[in-house]
């Protein structure tokens, strides 16, 4: 295991201490229970946005805490959902009197832990809404699954809802925007290598030198199918075709696209995917309005990528363009 870490059991706490020292103007890190809060929270009269999930996906969510995005993030240990006490403490800390939105990725653990937290928060009389993001087209949404996983659309939802909350929109509206983003966003990913969880010390799964795992989750869960390793354009075709078909995205649609690295793939490669993605959008007369290319929702050191497409209207674009000041997104 080739990692820049101290003891495997300390990776999350060590990194959070570093995060605090690197961004003292932006955020505050608290421990026992662990959460990250934007430096100026709570903001009176503003809906508080709280998200969270297992660690190992950085910059998500800690890198999205700040003005115009999240009020707090609750990091679990690596790839393990955080616990209700964290969510409760974070929610209390950022409560500005206008209610709280929990943005939850659809994994059984995350959903249950956030649900328990929401019950406790509601008991305290704080208005609370929860939106579950489930945008991964690799998973069939049926009664035979836990439903689609929450992946890349989460990043876009946090940005857009953060902007709406920042300009003072009420909880019901912010939650509705979040549901809209979830309804209009689709993602799919591919792994070229496994990741290695520090506590495990070896790769979660093994892929042959000429194999890839298509439809991978962000925790090293197996994907939809194993295939021979393909070139970038073919990979882009596979992911984009599945995404386009699913919503479906059609000619005339306007989109925000994200080409996201899983942690071990260089930026150079992500731009190679973007080239063909843009060509596919051209073919379908789908207009790329904005884009993100980089590591936003990673899976430790996994080589691979995911593509997210979000159908937008003027209002979503306006909120996307609104100022944001976090460690990972800033404009």
């Amino acid at each position, binding site marked *: 295991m080739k990692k820049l870490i101290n003891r495997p059991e300390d990776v999350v706490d060590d990194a959070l201490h570093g995060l605090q020292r690197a961004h003292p103007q932006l955020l505050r890190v608290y421990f026992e229970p662990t959460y990250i809060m934007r430096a100026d929270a709570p903001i009176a009269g503003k809906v508080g946005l709280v998200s969270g999930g297992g660690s190992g996906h950085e910059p998500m969510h800690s890198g999205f805490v700040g003005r115009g995005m999240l009020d707090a993030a609750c990091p679990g240990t690596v790839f393990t959902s955080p616990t209700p006490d964290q969510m409760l403490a974070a929610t209390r800390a950022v409560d500005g009197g206008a209610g709280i939105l929990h943005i939850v990725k659809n994994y*059984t653990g995350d959903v249950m832990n956030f649900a*328990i937290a929401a019950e406790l928060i509601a008991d305290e009389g704080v208005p609370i809404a929860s939106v579950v993001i489930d945008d991964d087209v690799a998973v069939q949404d049926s009664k035979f699954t836990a439903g689609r996983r929450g992946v890349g659309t989460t990043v876009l939802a946090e940005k857009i809802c953060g902007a709406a909350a920042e300009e003072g929109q009420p909880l019901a509206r912010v939650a509705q925007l979040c549901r809209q983003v979830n309804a209009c966003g689709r993602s799919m990913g591919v792994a070229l290598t496994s990741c290695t969880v520090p506590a495990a010390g070896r790769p979660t799964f093994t892929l042959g030198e000429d194999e890839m795992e298509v439809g991978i*989750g962000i925790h*090293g869960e197996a994907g939809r199918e194993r295939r021979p390793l393909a070139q970038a354009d073919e990979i882009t075709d596979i992911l984009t075709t599945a995404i386009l078909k699913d919503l479906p995205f059609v000619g005339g649609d306007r989109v925000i696209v994200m080409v996201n690295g899983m942690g071990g793939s260089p930026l150079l490669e992500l731009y190679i995917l973007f080239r063909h993605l843009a060509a596919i959008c051209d073919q379908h007369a789908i207009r790329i309005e904005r884009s993100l290319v980089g590591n936003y929702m990673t899976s430790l050191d996994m080589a691979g990528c995911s593509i997210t497409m979000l159908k937008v209207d003027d209002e979503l674009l306006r909120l996307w363009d609104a100022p944001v000041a976090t460690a990972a997104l800033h404009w």
Partner: protein
Amino acid sequence: MTRDQIIDWIRRYAAAIAENKVQLTELDAALGDGDHGINMDRGMGEVAAKLPGVAGSDIGAILNTVGITMLSKVGGAAGPLYGTLFMRFSKETAGKLELTGSEFVGALAAGLTGIQQRGSARPGEKTMVDALWPAVEMLRQALTDGATLPAALQVAAAAAKDGAAKTIPMQASKGRASYLGPRSIGHQDPGATSAYLLLAAAAEAAQAIPPNASV
């Protein structure tokens, strides 16, 4: 089952989790994200550390601490599920210093109901429910048939073990393993396995003279 035996149960469970940490994690690597053993061990380690501090309380209070600790220290899917099990168990046993067989099975059944409310899994979906459900059934049956609680818990543990083994040919439709679709077939569910360990620990504790019984 006495309070000391309840404490012994939890202590034995923590030890069994520690011992099977790697195996549970490997089962979860095949079906999920490879953290079940690590998460359970982290949580049960915290639970074990807290037991001495609550050893003088009633069973309900002790198991409430167990539940809350698991809820806040295990994380993932198993944390809220086991947390719910113990918190429901605790509600049923508030104020008690000893449990009869029927009190024990009633509390355990309440815990299982809690798990099913939280996770909405029925038997056959390849989850911990597949170990817990037959265990509760067989426990109730054995007690009805006149067995002592220690004897009935032996039967229940065997049923849990069997239930866990029967998850092998199942296709998962709940939790992370469900993403695998048919590829989930052929592996034993980690949560069902840790649930079997819970019943096995209970059977052992019911049989044994707890280490601090004389204190």
